[in-house]
């Protein structure tokens, strides 16, 4: 492992659990644990509960008079649709091109206080763009290393949080302040797995106390520490896009079929003109799901064919531990006019493998 990677506050905990590490957005994070592995960790989240350290995720605070109004004039989704205490999936687009700088979650605390969780690799850039555009009186603080984020995901997540006397009753996509052993933290009803779950935003110095408490109380509930390998298979089964693969500066929200996260009626947001024009004209390609009709696991960047015609490319592909088949998110040319159920082929290392077009999610979500 190179030494220039940022380590999360729980690094020693992960080492002690025999984690294999990988680099994620400049951070050295656990990929899987010695007693687990991707499939066991994935299954724990679908059937019991999993505890993830996702402290590589960015954290930023926008504060000052008119902070929410300012954020709403930059990011795509309409913050006016939610009230204080609620969170919203949104995107930061490039104003000129409409491509996605990052997708993120905005936590609306008050009109003058918005907390953001961008992706690790894009946090500095999102902060830079916001800070550059911020009016007088509004500040943008990059708090990347100030907080840890622990995700508790799965049907047993409520019971696990209750064992720590943390609040569990708030609705999906909302958050509330709480404390654990005298340490304050924020309990968000959010996640990236498709299961009922929580994400805890904890001061970095308190991360170990909360992590230890979760694993101790979770032992009786079949809880497992889960790495980012399982997080990727879980999110792919849900069809949740990953920035850098399914969303990027070259892939717009219209192409990614993320128009539901764009406040089209807002007078202003970055990329509005480009995205409205693309929506009006119809995108040249869109994000589609594929499920393997035979053995074969599609992987990112493999080509997709209809007959002899190359019609697109895999952006994310993996083995679905739940369905036990290969699944993929793909960018497919609109001109191919594919319908759900149609068969296409993916070139897997020189071999054509049959796949069916399906509408994600590949597995039924249970987020509520």
């Amino acid at each position, binding site marked *: 492992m190179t030494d220039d990677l940022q380590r999360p506050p729980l690094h020693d905990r992960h080492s002690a659990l025999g984690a*294999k590490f990988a680099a994620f957005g400049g951070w050295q994070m656990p990929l*899987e644990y010695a007693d687990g*592995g991707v*499939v*066991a960790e994935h299954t724990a989240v679908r059937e019991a509960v999993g505890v993830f350290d996702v402290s590589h995720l960015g954290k930023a605070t926008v504060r000052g008079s008119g902070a929410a109004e300012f954020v709403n004039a930059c990011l795509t989704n309409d913050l006016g649709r939610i009230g204080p205490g609620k969170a919203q999936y949104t995107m930061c687009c490039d104003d000129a091109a409409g491509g996605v700088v990052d997708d993120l979650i905005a936590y609306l605390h008050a009109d003058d206080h918005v907390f953001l969780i961008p992706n690790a690799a894009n946090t500095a850039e999102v902060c830079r763009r916001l800070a550059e555009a911020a009016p007088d009186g509004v500040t943008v603080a990059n708090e990347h290393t100030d907080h840890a984020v622990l995700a508790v995901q799965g049907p047993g997540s409520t019971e696990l949080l209750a064992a720590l006397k943390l609040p569990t009753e708030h609705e999906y996509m909302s958050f509330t302040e709480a404390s654990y052993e005298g340490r304050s933290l924020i309990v968000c009803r959010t996640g990236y797995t498709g299961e009922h779950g929580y994400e805890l935003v904890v001061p970095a110095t308190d991360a170990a106390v909360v992590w230890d408490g979760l694993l101790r109380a979770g032992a009786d509930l079949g809880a497992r520490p889960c790495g980012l*390998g399982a997080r990727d298979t879980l999110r792919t089964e849900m069809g949740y896009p990953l920035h850098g693969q399914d969303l990027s500066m070259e892939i717009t929200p219209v192409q990614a079929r993320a128009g539901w996260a764009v406040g089209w009626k807002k007078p202003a947001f970055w990329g509005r003109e480009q995205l409205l024009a693309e929506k009006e004209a119809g995108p040249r390609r869109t994000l589609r799901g594929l499920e393997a009709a035979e053995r074969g*696991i599609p992987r990112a960047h493999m080509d997709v064919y209809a007959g002899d015609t190359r019609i697109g490319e895999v952006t994310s592909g993996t*083995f679905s*531990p739940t369905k*036990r088949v290969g699944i993929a998110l793909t960018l497919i040319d609109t001109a191919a006019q594919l319908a759900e159920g149609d068969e296409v082929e993916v070139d897997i290392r020189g071999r054509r493998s049959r796949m069916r077009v399906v509408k994600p999610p590949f597995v039924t979500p249970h987020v509520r």
Partner: protein
Amino acid sequence: MIPEDLRYTPEHEWVRAQPDAPAVRVGITHYAQDALGDIVFVQLPDVGAKATAGESFGEVESTKSVSDIYAPVDGAVTAVNSSLAESPELLNSDPYGEGWLVEIEPADQAALGNLLDATGYRELTESE
């Protein structure tokens, strides 16, 4: 996790001579399965296929990635482990036992002598 009685290739396969049969049994090492992670698909040659030392004759695919498996010696495939189609995880749980891949009847029994012994293989994995 490197049994003393086996022979090894630099591509992380093991080879076991069988006392009562001319064919050798072949699998992937503990080191290999650990590096691959959870194995979800195994593609093996058909019985009767020709194996050429150093050439790919199958694939193992994990949740993360796919790897070729290379024939350790020249010869003919005399058996394949059919339980891997349903239970590829045997490669992770028992790589030297239930997770064996194929049996090959070597064209030249002396070829085994060219493979690494346990000490040589241990040195190889420690240098990787």
